[in-house]
């Protein structure tokens, strides 16, 4: 198994009442409520959490990015990836991921990621995302071409990583006279690419066609099973068998010394009024052209308030469906076992706390996870045959079916190859 630590990096020092008064906590919620003194304190606190996560035995640290909202302070995941490349020694740095359509220059992204891979001595996992709807608006990127830009930027980056330059790129959305970055990834043929997502079928199908692991982000168990049915059927059509090495899951899981404390802190997973990206107008989170045409009818009704938010479930429902797990190490293990047995992922991200959970309780949660939960989960993984892409030595993609041969194997600490 590959077990990762994750936090949204909540900006948990903003005036909640101001968000309620404004009626939104995303995109247009004014950054005059962002206090950089608190921001500085929190960023440094999150760095301590990442260091602790490596110390207590996590295999990877998962990073992401969002814009214009307190639910996530990380505006550029490559910044934290660079920091982690230098201050950690063992953990994989798992970006889930860079929002490709937001990039006007994907070659620049390819360079940054290659630098991170080299500085970290080959520990980068470079996930890619489409970015939320609000991200498109926050960065002025056309939502109607989101998927086209995603696919074209991906193709360009992989080519920049794998094909010696200089070459010219004349695409529909990107044109580059000279692609010839003097920074190429250490890992060959290129760093692993994992694709996280929530709902969009198109993304699941696309990931399965590339043979990229798909990371389901806190979906309910039944929905997760449907994701794997779809992924596996596309894998079979594509000519390979899907399985645990293609499956990842992000689990909200808060662990404390007592059941009561764990439950109280787990309520903070709802701190953005139940919608983890914050309160927002539906047309901000799903601008026209951004979402699947097949969902158009349901969406337009939601957008004018005629249909309930399909994504907002109550805390109790999320506990019941195991989208949120909370307890002592002893009580969370049977539930994690159920997740592993029923959905068979080999990659599991532990989203350990959120919102206003204190620094002390967050540190405790990370420590308890590392010392008491992860070893037991690893045993379950062995018993259930849940081999991670690293353990299974799975191909990085459909394009590169042969075994990965890192150019500088010596540079990689053995412990990293878990």
């Amino acid at each position, binding site marked *: 198994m590959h077990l990762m630590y994750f936090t949204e990096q909540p900006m948990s020092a903003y005036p909640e009442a101001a968000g309620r008064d404004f009626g939104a906590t995303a*995109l*247009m919620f004014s950054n005059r409520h962002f206090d950089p003194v608190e921001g500085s304190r929190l960023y440094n606190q999150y760095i301590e959490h990442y260091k602790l996560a490596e110390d207590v035995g996590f295999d990877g640290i998962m990073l992401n990015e969002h814009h214009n909202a307190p639910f996530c302070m990380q505006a550029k995941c490559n910044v934290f990836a660079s920091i982690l490349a230098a201050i950690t020694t063992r953990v994989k740095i798992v970006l889930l991921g860079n929002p490709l359509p937001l990039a006007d220059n994907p070659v620049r992204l390819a360079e940054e990621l290659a630098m991170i891979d080299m500085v970290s001595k080959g520990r980068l996992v470079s996930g890619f995302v489409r970015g939320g709807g609000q991200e498109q*608006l926050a960065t*002025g990127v*056309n*939502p*109607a*071409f989101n998927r086209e830009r995603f696919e074209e930027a991906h193709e360009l980056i992989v080519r920049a990583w794998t094909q010696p330059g200089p070459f010219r790129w004349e695409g529909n959305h990107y044109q580059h006279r000279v692609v010839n970055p003097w920074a190429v990834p250490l890992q060959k043929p290129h760093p692993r690419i994992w694709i996280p997502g929530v709902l969009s079928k198109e993304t699941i199908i696309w990931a399965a066609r590339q043979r990229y692991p798909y990371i389901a982000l806190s979906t309910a168990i039944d929905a997760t099973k449907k994701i794997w049915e779809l992924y596996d059927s596309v894998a079979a059509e594509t000519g390979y068998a899907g399985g645990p090495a293609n499956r990842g899951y992000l689990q909200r899981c808060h662990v404390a010394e007592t059941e009561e404390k764990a439950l109280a802190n787990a309520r903070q997973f709802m701190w953005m009024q139940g919608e983890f990206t914050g309160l927002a*107008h*539906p*047309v*901000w989170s799903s*601008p*026209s*052209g951004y979402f699947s045409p097949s969902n*158009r*009818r349901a*969406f*337009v*009704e939601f*957008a*004018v308030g*005629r249909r309930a938010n399909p994504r907002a479930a109550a805390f109790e429902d999320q506990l019941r469906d195991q989208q949120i797990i909370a307890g002592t190490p002893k009580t969370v293990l049977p539930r994690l076992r159920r997740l592993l047995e029923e959905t068979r992922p080999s990659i599991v991200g532990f989203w350990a706390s959120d919102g206003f959970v204190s620094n002390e309780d967050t540190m405790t949660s990370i420590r308890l996870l590392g010392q008491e939960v992860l070893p037991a989960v690893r045993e379950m993984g062995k018993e259930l045959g849940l081999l991670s892409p690293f353990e299974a030595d799975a191909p990085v993609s459909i394009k590169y079916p042969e075994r990965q041969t890192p150019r500088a194997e010596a540079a990689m600490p053995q412990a990293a190859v878990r």
Partner: protein
Amino acid sequence: MTEAPWTRESVDVAGQPLPFMRAGAGDPLLVLSHDVGSLPSLPFYDLLARQYTVYVPSHPGYDGSARPEWLRSVRDVAIIYQWFLAERGLTGVSLVGLGFGGWIAAEMAAMAPAAFRRLVLVGAMGIRPDSGEILDQALVSYLDYARAGFADPKVFERLYGSEPPTSQLEQWDLNREMTFRIAWKPYMYSPTLPHLLGGVRAPALVAWGRQDRIVPLECGERYAKALPRARLVVVEDAGHFVEMEQPEALGKLVAEFAATS
């Protein structure tokens, strides 16, 4: 007076059918609609059809018209309409551009400065305001955007209903997606257009709703300045959708303009 019947036709332009409505008799007049599309019939269109042969096309990718995947700019749309006129053999055409359609009409006049008989721009997009902003529909719902176009909310309700059907919402979403595809950035204007309007020979009527909350009146002032033979008229008790809110007043203005130019 009984109104002329409207026929629904289509011609192939740029590889795809371009649907349009036609009615009336007289000199040809092309009406270019808003970014929200058009209702299937409007009293204003009937008024125009008393004097002209009126053509009301659905913009490519709007209101059920097939989406040309390659279309990237409002100037592309303007060229499609030049092609449409050539296909129909129409000359001496007058243009009436409503809001977003006003931008298309202005582009058409700029690219063929001697081709048109008269130009009527109503609350036209296409020019960047100096101080205000063109309302960004990306930040508001379909209903709120359409409502913002009316000075009197009751007129919206009368035309669209107090609860427009889901099919209307879907059409607004499709139209909005098409608008994003061709006018996302810069949003709803061309930085070069004001420099290209000086050659337009046709007399121009620039009409603006006093309570236009979508395109500021100063854009009308800039159009009137950039077009050599233009006159700006402000219509009272009207928002952005002047033709829906004050059809009689706007129809009268167009008729007077035609009689004196």
